[in-house]
């Protein structure tokens, strides 16, 4: 568990992101060549631009690595950074990761079940669980009831907006 979270921290840290992007670019480059050779009969093909992009990306990633090294070497954080950036840059502690992970999983669940459960049920569950994800501490029964009510209102408002006002078809379990 601990090594998993350490891996996670590294992956989402400065070098980890660069490495992931590098891997992505290489896959992209390989796929691009599979489409067609970049130049055929003297004319550009569909793969020319992607290949050029991949090259630019590799150079850019190189630039990032260099500037990160320079920063680390000089030992001072960049003075250009805004407050917001440095807030986000802080390594999130284990507890603070819970929020984003929860939101991600809930959203993934919502999307997966959206068509199967239909709009009303899926949205109600999602809205309710999201209010829990953004809440502090342990909610009391009254708070829970209130959140359920809020979730219901959100679902209804969404329905009103999209289905009634704009005549858009939201999925139902029986279509």
């Amino acid at each position, binding site marked *: 568990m601990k090594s998993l979270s350490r891996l996670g921290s590294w992956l989402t840290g400065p070098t980890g992101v660069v490495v992931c992007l590098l891997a992505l670019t290489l896959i992209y480059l390989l796929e691009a060549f599979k489409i*067609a050779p970049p130049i055929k009969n003297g004319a550009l*093909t569909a793969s020319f631009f992607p290949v050029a992009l991949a090259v630019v990306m590799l150079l850019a990633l190189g630039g990032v690595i260099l500037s990160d090294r320079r920063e680390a070497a000089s030992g001072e954080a960049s003075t250009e950074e805004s407050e917001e950036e440095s807030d986000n840059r802080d390594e999130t502690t284990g507890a603070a990761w819970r929020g984003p992970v929860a939101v991600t999983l809930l959203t993934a669940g919502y999307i997966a079940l959206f068509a199967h459960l239909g709009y009303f049920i899926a949205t109600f569950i999602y809205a309710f669980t999201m209010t829990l994800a953004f809440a502090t501490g342990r909610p009391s029964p009254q708070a829970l009831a209130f959140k359920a009510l809020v979730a219901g209102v959100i679902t209804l408002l969404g329905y009103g907006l999209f289905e009634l006002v704009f*005549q858009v*078809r939201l999925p139902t379990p029986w*279509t």
Partner: protein
Amino acid sequence: MRKSMSMTLGGLALVVSASVAADYPERDVRMIVPWGAGGGTDGIVRKISNLAEEPLGGTVYVENIEGGMSANGLVQALGARPDGYTLIALTYDSVVTIPWQGMLAGYDIDKLDLIARITSEPDAVVVPEDSRFDSLEALIEAAKAAPGEIRAGIQNMGSRTHLTLLQLQDQAEVEFKIVSYPGGAAPQKEALLNGEVDLALTSLGDFESLISAGDARGLVEFTDVQSESFPDVPPASELGYDIQMGSFVILAAPANTPDEAVTALEAAYQQAYDSEEFQSWLVDVGVTPNWLGTDEVEDWAEQTQDELFARMDELKEAGLIGQ
């Protein structure tokens, strides 16, 4: 015993289907337009659907699902329940380009019930007003004298407009410099106006605003009938070319849609088609009305497919298109 059972069942089935017919449409009918809102196909389909609502006795709402040269809209239509409440507007790309290119696994027009063809628009050659070509012959002559230099603007590579141009090149034995403008007629218009191309290849209806303003004119239409909206533009058949290419709008539903629904839709849309309002609107926008009902449109579509597939195969053999 068995006889009366089957009679009852038969009677029941009759009653049910009759009630379906009597009640259809019970809810709103969804018409998928696999192109952008505000475009040519969208305009035609919305106009006629609007007029068809009354004879149909229900509402038809249009959903624009664009992308993939109409593939996205097709995916939605194919996945919908064939209960008469989902329809789709097909154009050339849905009937020819996508099946031939194999862009949608398993798709061909037999997965759809075709209801009717409403309009057709032959492709044409359009030049700017001040062009030095005042007829198709003049253009061809100049092209022969300068192979690969006269710039012809088409839409996408491998598209219908490209195909038409290739056929012209083939039959006239000339070579143009082909410049492609994906994204429809709008960028073609711009290119013609700013002089980036010498001619554009698309329907006259697409260029209607420029033609009526006198900034552009048509040299030929690739069909065998003289157009009424553009009496100055001769059909290709008159000029000795056997090329009939153009787009069309066909209304369709997923395969196995109940007959009652199809009949009701055909009747309603035909009424809308015949209306004075629709006919005169078509003349205004420069599109040719060309009705072909349910019993004939499937054969026509298959025939068109066969012809065009053969053409495209030939051109592919000759190395002129595709990868």
